[in-house]
Structure formats: C-alpha cells, structure tokens
C-alpha cells in the first residue's frame, strides 16, 4: 500500500462516524467462482476458507451444480460464495436456464483457468460466454482471472507462460465485452452512463490502488485482474488477499487507524490478518520499512502463519479452525524484533519493530491498549462462535 506515513491524518471523527453508520447494515457480497471442471476451484476455496492443507484437497470430489456457502469475514462482511461446478452440462445450464439467476447482482467473478488444459480454444470460448453473460447482467462486477496450477510449469518458464496466457485472456475479454456492447448498442449506451459514477464511489485510498492495477487496456469500465496461482505456494494468498481487499468495508478507517498506531509505537511495519483465513486485511509500512526488498512479503506471511497454524493443530489436536496461538515474539539481535498477537476477536496483528528491549515491551503494551480502536472490526454482532464450516 502506498500510504505515505507523512500525509496520514489522525483518526478523523467524520470517517469514524461514517464507519459506524456503515457497519449497521451487514454487507453480503455475491462472489461467483467459476472455471472448467478440475481446474481447482473448490480446492482453493477449501484452503483459504476451510483451512485445508494443499495435499488434503486431493480428496475433494467434483462439485455438483452450485455449492453455496456463506463465509463470514471480519464479523461485518459476509461473502456469498457460489462455487459453480465446472462440467460442461452445468456451464450450459448457467448460461441458458439459470442465466439471470446466476449472473445478476454479482459483486465479484473469480474465473479459474487450468494452465495445463489441453483445449485452450474451448476454455476461452466458455470464458467468453461467461464474460458476455456477466457484462449483460452485472456490469460493475469485478473480474479476477486466476491462471491456476502454475506449479506444474517448470520454474524457469513460468513467467513467459503466464504472460502469454494473460495476454490471450485480456484479448478475449475485450472481444467479449465489445461484442456485447455492439449487440445492444442502446442498452449498452444506457448502461455506460450508469457506469460512469461507479469510479469515484470507493473510498479515496481504494481508488488509487484500483485504478493503477486493475484497469485493462480493452475496456476502462471493466475491472479485470490476472494472477498466477498455485495451491502449493503463497501465490494463492496474494490473489485472494487482493480479492478480499476490495470487499472489506471501512477499509479507509482501518488504514488510518493502523497508520496512527504504527507511528505511535515507532514500528517498521504492521500487518492485520483475518483470524481464520490469515489473509492480509490491511497493512501499514514506515518509510524505512518500504525499503524491504521482499515485495511478496505479505502473502508470504499469510502462508507462513497459516502453515504454522496447521502444525499447531496437529500437535495440540484441536480443530483447524480454532485459534492456535495467542502470542508470538521474536527478537533477532540488533536487526529487528517482531511480535504477532491476537488482536480483536476476528484478527491477528503482526508488528515488526526496530530492535531494543524497551521499545519492544512498550510497543506490546501500546498495541494492547489500541484494541478498543479496532473494536468495529468485530462487527455489530459480537461473534463468539467460530466461523461456520462449509464442506
């Protein structure tokens, strides 16, 4: 995140009030998860939201029709996750009989491509049909395309393969969109106008990140982001963190408060994780921390902590969705010190500090003291029960 620490104001009372107004209504976002059968949709979902290990996903069977699940995230955001079976019969059904039912009111479409698929032409044809349907029924939906199973490609050629495939997907998306627009010029023009005010709608901090990364050259109104993913490394967390990132309500409030906390305790970096999925909800980095050469450190932290969680659950014999550790501290001589601790009911916080015992201890106390600032993360209803587990 490019939030420069110098320009961050303190906690804005107006923003806080807006946040409170916003959290009154519980948000439900419809998320479509689609792709050809066997491309790994349910595997991803189980790893991110049900705490499966990558190797456990071999046991998953084929999804029949649509598998609906409600994933609670941070207490006040509920994802309405539609895991759509990928067999062609199902796909045709979605595109014909259930078209309006499936594709209306979509917040996010996550489309998964299997990189090893032999029939790319056909995959693309299906993809184009899906995109056409999506553009027709919910124009402002965000589209995330995950080029999946990248672990099956030799490491040296991964980047080239991904670039080639990404270019193809972008071109096909542009084609699909333009065809829909041509077919219904009057409807398209009408929707175009509806489309216009969509841009300034998200919070100011959000737009900067969205406009730089997600606009594709084909159609500025279509939000398309591409990721290379694999269930065997952290790339999966990168993709899902950015999917979730755009959905989190009160994001600007979280970010400002995290920034003021970071400055108060003189930290180098602060990461805020969701409790069960360990996706990075928000982060703050000091100017010194920005010099860190590891650009992928956030998803790496998610991956590390999540696999640690698995180890713990194996050792203690507690269920995987339960919380596994309450406190972690690490002092690396004169290089740095860090701690991760349970923060609010739904979050963990990880703070990276400069070295120094006194600094470390006072930061720990301060983070504990800052907990009430972030109470709103737990949502209007205090959820003491664990996240519902989906199969």
């Amino acid at each position, binding site marked *: 995140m490019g939030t420069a620490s110098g320009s961050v104001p303190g906690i804005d009372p107006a923003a806080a009030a807006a946040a409170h107004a916003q959290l009154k209504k519980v948000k439900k976002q419809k998320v479509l998860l689609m792709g050809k059968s066997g491309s790994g949709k349910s595997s991803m979902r189980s790893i991110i939201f049900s705490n499966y290990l990558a190797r456990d996903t071999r046991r998953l069977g084929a999804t029949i029709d649509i598998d609906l699940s409600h994933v609670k995230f941070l207490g006040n955001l509920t994802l309405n996750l539609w895991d759509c079976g990928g067999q062609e019969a199902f796909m045709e059904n979605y595109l014909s009989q259930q078209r309006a039912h499936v594709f209306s009111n979509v917040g996010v479409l996550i489309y998964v491509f299997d990189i090893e698929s032999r029939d790319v032409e056909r995959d693309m044809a299906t993809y184009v049909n899906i995109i056409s349907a999506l553009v027709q029924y919910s124009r402002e939906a965000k589209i995330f395309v995950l080029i999946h199973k990248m672990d099956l490609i030799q490491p040296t050629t991964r980047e080239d393969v991904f670039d080639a495939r990404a270019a193809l997907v972008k071109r096909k998306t542009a084609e699909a969109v333009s065809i829909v627009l041509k077919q219904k010029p009057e409807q398209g023009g009408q929707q175009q106008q509806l489309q216009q005010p969509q841009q300034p709608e998200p919070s100011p901090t959000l737009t900067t990140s969205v406009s730089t990364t997600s606009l594709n050259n084909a159609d500025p109104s279509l939000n398309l982001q591409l990721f290379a993913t694999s269930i065997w490394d952290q790339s999966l967390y990168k993709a899902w963190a950015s999917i979730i990132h755009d959905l989190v309500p009160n994001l600007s409030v979280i970010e400002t408060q995290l920034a003021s906390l970071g400055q108060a305790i003189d930290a180098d970096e602060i990461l805020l994780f969701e409790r069960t999925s360990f996706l990075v909800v928000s982060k703050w980095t000091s100017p*010194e921390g920005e010099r860190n050469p590891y650009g992928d450190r956030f998803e790496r932290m998610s991956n590390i902590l999540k696999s640690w969680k698995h180890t713990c659950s194996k050792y203690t014999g507690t269920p995987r969705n*339960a919380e596994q550790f309450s406190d972690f501290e690490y002092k690396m001589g004169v290089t740095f010190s860090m701690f991760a601790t349970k923060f609010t009911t739904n979050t963990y916080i990880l703070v990276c500090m400069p070295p120094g015992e006194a600094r470390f201890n006072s930061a720990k106390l301060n983070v504990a003291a800052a907990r009430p600032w972030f109470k709103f993360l737990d949502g209007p209803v205090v959820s003491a029960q664990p996240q519902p587990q989906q199969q």
Partner: protein
Amino acid sequence: MSFTYAEDGDVPTDARGGPSRPHPVRFISPAALNLHRVYEQNRQRLQKKDGTKVPDPTTPQTKGRPRLLLMGQRRSGKSSISSVVFHKLPPSETLFLESTARIQKDSLSSFMEFQVWDFPGQIDIFDNPNFTFDMDAIFGEIGALIWVIDAQDDYLEAVARLNATILHLHRSYPHINIEVFIHKVDGLSDDYRLDIQRDVTIRIQDELSDQGVENAPVNFHLTSIYNHSIFEAFSKVIQKLIPRLGQLEAMLTNLCRTCRFEKAYLFDVNTKIYIATDSTPEDMASYEICSDYVDVIIDFTEVYGSWSRSENWRERLEGEPWAQPLDNQVACEWAESGMVLADARRPIMLREVDKFLALVAIMKEGSYEKMPQINMNVDVVVKGLTEFFEITKPKDVIGGGPPSAGLV
C-alpha cells in the same frame, strides 16, 4: 547396462558400423568416465607413495570429513532426498530433477563438516567386469551408507543388490553403518508400510545369515520427502557420527529438568536435522512442531532481517529518547523467540546457539510467566553448548590433519 572400456589409443570398432546401429555399444557414460578418472588418480597416488601400503580397514576411519553415501536403484529418489534435506528444495519441485549421471558430491559446512555423495543408480559398482572402482576412495572415509529402496515399486531387485553390496563391503569395511531408507511410503497405508518393512528386514537378515554374516550394522527407516520422516531418519543417521553425543544429551536433559521443559531439541538450522535431544521418549509430533518452528523463524528472518537498514534509521534509534547504542538496547545478540499455543497456554521457545545451531523446547503449561528465569538458565546452557563445540571441533582437526582437499 553393458559398456566396454576403451584402452588408450583404441579406435572405436563400431565406427564402420554405419548409422543403422540400434544403440551405441561403446557408449561410456560421464559417470563411468569420472569414476575412472578418480580411480586412475588414486591408483597413481598410491603407487607413488608405496605400492604395498594398504590402509588398515579394521579401524574406523575418522580422517577428513565424515561422508554420507546415498545409493540405491535408479529412480528410487536419492537425488530428491538430498535436494530436499540439504538444499531446501520444495518436495513438489523434485519432479523436475534430472537423472543423476555422475557422483554428486556436496560438502556442507555446518556444526560439523560432512559431505554427501549422491550415487548414480544405474551403475553397479561391484558388478562391473571391465574396471573396478577404487573402493577405498569411495568407502574409505565413509560415515554411513544410506541405501534407498522405493517402496512403491517392486523392491526385490533392490533388496538383492543391497545384499550384494553389504556382503562386498562387510569383508573390507566392517565398520560402515548401513542405513536402509524404505522410501516413498507416503502413498501407502500404515499396515502396508509395516508389512514392507518386515518383509525387507527378513529378506536381508536371512540372506546375510545364510552367508554367515551375523549382526551386520543395518538399520531401517520408513521415509518420505512429503513429511518429516526423512529429516528424522537423517537425524538418527547423523547422530551416530557425532563424537560424545552422550554429554550433549546429558546437558539437554539437565536443562529440561531445571526449567520444566517437556522436550528440547538441538537443531541444525539449515537442514532441520536434530543432533541431540533430551532423554525423554521421542515422538514425531513434538519433532514436527519444533522443526516447523525453526522454519517459521527462518522465514521471518529472511523477510525482515536479511536487508540492511539505512544509516539515519540507526541514528534515530540511538538518539534522544533512548540515547544508547543499539547493541546496548538489546538483551541478547542471538535470535530468541517464544510462542504461546492457545490450548492450555503452552509456550514453545527457540534460542540460537551459534550460526548453525538452535535450541528449541516445548515447555509445560503456564510456564510463560517464568520466562525471565528460564531465559537465564537457557543462557547458561547455550554457553555450555558453545564450549562443547569448541572442545570437540579442534579434536577433529588434530585427528584428521588438514581437511583433505582432494575429495571435494
């Protein structure tokens, strides 16, 4: 594989054979060439020194660095093992490894210097009529021979070759520890694993006792690169090579008693092999959690500790509110870490001993409050461990002279 060895100046006989030959008869693999080169070198060296002098095979060789020799059938997973354990290759990436064509020699600078030789599987060094390998160069300074058997494949041939190897070696090098890794057991059910282990054990022991070899030092391990079993097996193998392991274990047992630790491990950080543990019974679960903890710490260190901070960052930290050099602000110059598990508040602690070693311990419930005292005790033990390695290290050098350069 049948290849004939060409004498110097010999013209290849199949040169006139034309292009229609189905396969080159005179093909000499790089491995064979290399082995021949090693053999020639050693032969010349021996002749130069003294033709009659043969090293006494009955005393165990401690010269140079102890060597682990990985052998087995082709495609049994030897290179995957050494890449996963010693080069931190993710197990899934080992699918892409090329077949090993020559002896792959790795030397590891760790708490103890040892080398790992990865043997090509398609060559049978004893069953080669045309030239023999210099057995002494290969087996002379060996610490342990690790024989890898693919449990998912038909293992009868592998067992037969292992038997032949043991019989060959037993004559001249009776002190070699032979460790059999029954490998790739991850895809098998628990019952079937034990069946295979029993079957292999019986076949080998029967064969050996038929040949009149009793009590051969053969140990069996069930391994897989997809879980911790390969690391545990290597730990057992390496522990046998450590001089005065008993003292090390006594130190850890003592620490466990005074600090009320459930279990303590001394880890080699790079390979996650544990070189000592206390005397309480070992269990896989606590080894797993401790070695994963080392992993977590390594990952955090890489991300946040491997790049240098700017000069004015340091100046600011040493400045007004604290007004002390950074070195005085920290309590311990090595890495130290603690984590509290949520169930029953059971803490785990890690403390770096030196560049290669880390002490990891699981504590009893509720001892997190006594952390300062525990840290002091651990400090003392760490000091003791450092002394221990100071004392044992020069002994190796005195015993073996300068590290033999010709072997790497």
